[in-house]
């Protein structure tokens, strides 16, 4: 469906507003169901500092489907589980021990 057809069906005259509403609608749609699924990768590093096991989420993320870690033995990404309870450490000043 074209933007023009959507504008005609809704009676909207303002093109910019129509485009903004369409973006919002697609955003909401991607939030409740998956229309376009993307994949991104991050390097896992060996910790040398207290927050080195923290990784950024993708900037354009709307809804997370899964997180996987590469099994280097058979070169496959395997889904990892979320911790139910956080470890008791609030701040780690010596991650190597």
């Amino acid at each position, binding site marked *: 469906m074209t933007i023009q057809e959507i504008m005609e069906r809704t009676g909207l005259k303002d093109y910019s507003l129509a485009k903004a509403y*369409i973006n919002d609608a697609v955003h909401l749609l991607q939030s409740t169901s998956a229309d376009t699924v*993307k994949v991104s990768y991050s390097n896992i590093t060996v910790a040398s500092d207290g927050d080195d096991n923290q*990784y950024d989420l993708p900037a354009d993320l709307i809804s997370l*489907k899964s*997180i996987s870690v590469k099994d280097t033995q058979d070169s496959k990404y395997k889904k990892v589980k979320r911790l139910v309870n956080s470890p008791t450490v609030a701040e780690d000043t010596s991650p190597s021990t």
Partner: protein
Amino acid sequence: MSVDTDRTYFFEFKGKKVVLWKLVESASTDTVGSYRVRLPDSYYKNQLIYPDEAITNGLRFEYTALSKVFVEEDPQSTVDSSLTEATSPSEESHVNLNRMRSLAVVDYIKAQINETKGDFQMKEYYMREFYKKIGDSESNMRNISINFPVSPFSVK
């Protein structure tokens, strides 16, 4: 070498960050000569440690995102991978959704227009229609067909 990562790695969220942990069954060790020995006061147990191995592209995120929202071609006429993103969309650009989801977008916009007018009853009506059409579109992907034998008798 990372092995059985589905059993040995775990994550948790800390705000916008993902915190990665590795589960190991070990005790504190030290190296004496060329031998790795367990320290006498240390006991063997499950421990969560920081990932102890660098893995290039080791962490994989699968997620939904806004991607190719507006395209040049009609998404109903060609496959998704052949669609060209409209970088400067015009009124003739297509919304990259199937027919049912495009109709859901129409309902969403009608809901927003009614909200602006202050007509919340109509807004709720159109939002319900929006979610109904998304639901229809989802269930179209997961049709379950159940067949029953037709009774030979018209009157039971």
